[in-house]
């Protein structure tokens, strides 16, 4: 029971991280029609900048700020130099060009920081555990991530549904040409949206850093899971991204938590662990297949 509660919270925590990634990716897709594989690289850059700055200054807050600004600035530079030229191209060109960007970013990071993972744990004031219910301790840092993620989700909701910028974003997603014709500076809007997406990816990276090893290739792992989230949620839909992220976060964490133990009942321990790890890596993809059989356009199709 305690284990279940703990795993549910872990699932929630992974879910909000996935949402931070998926929200940016799906916004950029919905508004600019761009599929950006390098979104995972921005996550990695956020994580590296944050871990490096934390290790240098000893301050978690400065690290977080470094991660956020590095991802946002590099993201907007990427948009201005390369991605802007791809909006009118077909998806294949976008995939290939951003694939090239990934190779470049991964190798550049490996050259600067080396292949050894960076380790910067959570700050002292966020380490340790609290008892969420009597007898169930849970790491404070993970709770902080969950709270931050939920706050950002709420903030994003307000931004998109209540503000003028949000109105432009929504209008841009459904009637791109018309918004341009009405005199909105589309180029600026695009850069802003891309910057926002990059900022969210950087936030996800900077927050996840202390939980995992910060290393080259971390971006693609989460990117592919984010794709699963977006396909499940429905392309271009923020609501879908939230639902998909929670679903994927839970399914992934719970299968990882319980499948190996369940298999151990029928198989020798080492076999069961390996097979359980493999099957739980596959679980989210099977989930995606089931959702697609039922709803080919995802749970919340944006342009139904």
């Amino acid at each position, binding site marked *: 029971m305690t284990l279940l509660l703990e795993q549910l919270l872990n699932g929630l925590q992974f879910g909000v991280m996935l949402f931070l990634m998926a929200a940016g990716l799906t916004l950029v*897709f919905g508004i600019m029609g761009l*599929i950006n594989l390098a979104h995972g690289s921005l996550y990695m850059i956020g994580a590296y900048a944050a871990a490096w700055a934390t290790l240098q200054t000893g301050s978690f807050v400065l690290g977080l700020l470094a991660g956020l600004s590095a991802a946002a600035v590099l993201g907007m530079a990427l948009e201005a130099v*390369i991605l802007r*030229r*791809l909006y009118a*191209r077909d*998806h*294949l*060109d976008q*995939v*290939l*060009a951003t*694939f*090239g*960007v*990934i*190779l*470049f*970013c*991964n*190798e*550049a990071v*490996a*050259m600067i920081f080396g292949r050894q993972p960076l380790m910067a744990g959570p700050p002292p004031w966020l380490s340790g555990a609290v008892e969420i219910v009597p007898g169930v301790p849970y790491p404070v840092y993970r709770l902080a991530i969950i709270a931050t993620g939920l706050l950002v989700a709420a903030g994003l909701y307000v931004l998109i549904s209540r503000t003028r910028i949000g109105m432009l974003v929504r209008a841009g997603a459904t009637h791109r040409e018309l918004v341009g014709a009405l005199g909105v500076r589309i180029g600026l809007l695009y850069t802003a949206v891309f910057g926002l997406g990059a900022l969210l990816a950087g936030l996800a990276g900077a927050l996840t850093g202390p939980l995992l090893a910060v290393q080259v290739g971390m971006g*693609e792992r989460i990117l*592919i899971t984010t*794709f*699963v989230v*977006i*396909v499940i949620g429905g*392309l271009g839909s923020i609501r879908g991204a939230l639902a998909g992220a929670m679903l994927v976060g839970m399914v992934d964490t719970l299968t990882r938590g319980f499948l190996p133990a369940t298999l151990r009942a029928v198989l020798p321990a*080492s*076999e069961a662990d*390996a*097979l359980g*790890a*493999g*099957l739980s*890596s*596959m679980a989210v*993809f*099977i989930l*995606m*297949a089931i959702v*697609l*059989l039922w709803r*080919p*356009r*995802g749970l919340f199709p944006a342009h139904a």
Partner: protein
Amino acid sequence: MRESPRQIFVLVASFALLAALPWIAGAVGRPDLVTLGSQACVMAIAAASLDLLMGRTGLPSFGHAAWLGLGAYTVGILAFHARDLGPPWDQWAVQAWAVWPLAVLVPAALAAVIGALCLRTSGISFIMITLAFAQMFFFLFVALKTYGGDDGLTLRRRSTIPGIAPRDDVAFFYVCLTALVLVLLLLRRVAASRFGTVLDGIRQNERRMMAIGLSPFPYKLAAFVLSAGIAGLAGALHVNLFRFASPDLLHWTMSGELMVMVVLGGLGSLWGAMFGAAAMVVLHAVLAQWTEHWQIVLGPILVAVVLLARRGLWGALGGK
């Protein structure tokens, strides 16, 4: 499809060069060039099979490495179990005539299931979902510790082909080259057939194909399965070439590189995929010799190719 005189000349010259590669390698004292040539042929088969999907049918699959890897592991796993099997199976499990067709059939059968799922989506979702399914197979093979997991599976010796010594790299190069020629001829035949014309039509305007009374789904699925089967053959050759299969073969970067080969060669041009594959294999070898961080050069090259060279190598040969 008609090749221009210049293209025919380049094609004949390239195959003549390939056929003479072992002598050239011997003359310049670089026997490793033969292996490089075999690798180029194998990747060319895989890229040509992907071009059938991407270029002809307009289905940009980002998971083609899965079929390559499944073909390789089919050969590897059968050889791994050969000793445990009783006669005559223990002999058959290492015979090329028995296991290579299986390396085609296993990916093709799985592609029939996964293709049916993926083809429920289109456009960007299709790219994402093919990527995700390929990554699923990647994780599966990483988890299969019996077959080496992360470290990969070593093939004790190459599949037996009557009349060819298993350690003869030159002979194996000619096997790869023959396979490449046969695959390209098959794909050219497919392109010229009624089936190929329907695939062209689907790429150009799917709705119009439906309006004239054709259901696109079975054709798209058939193309998906055929393409996976040919990639499986490339996988069987790959595992034999290096006597090694690893999950890296199924990694998403491999899928990405295959797409790059197709686009670099010229999308939908059939012969182009061969030049794209050869260019990538040579580029890899050259850059890797030059610096450990070769990807930092390859990345910008890709971006430049996408942004600037729209028709690829084969299109540039066509002139105009």
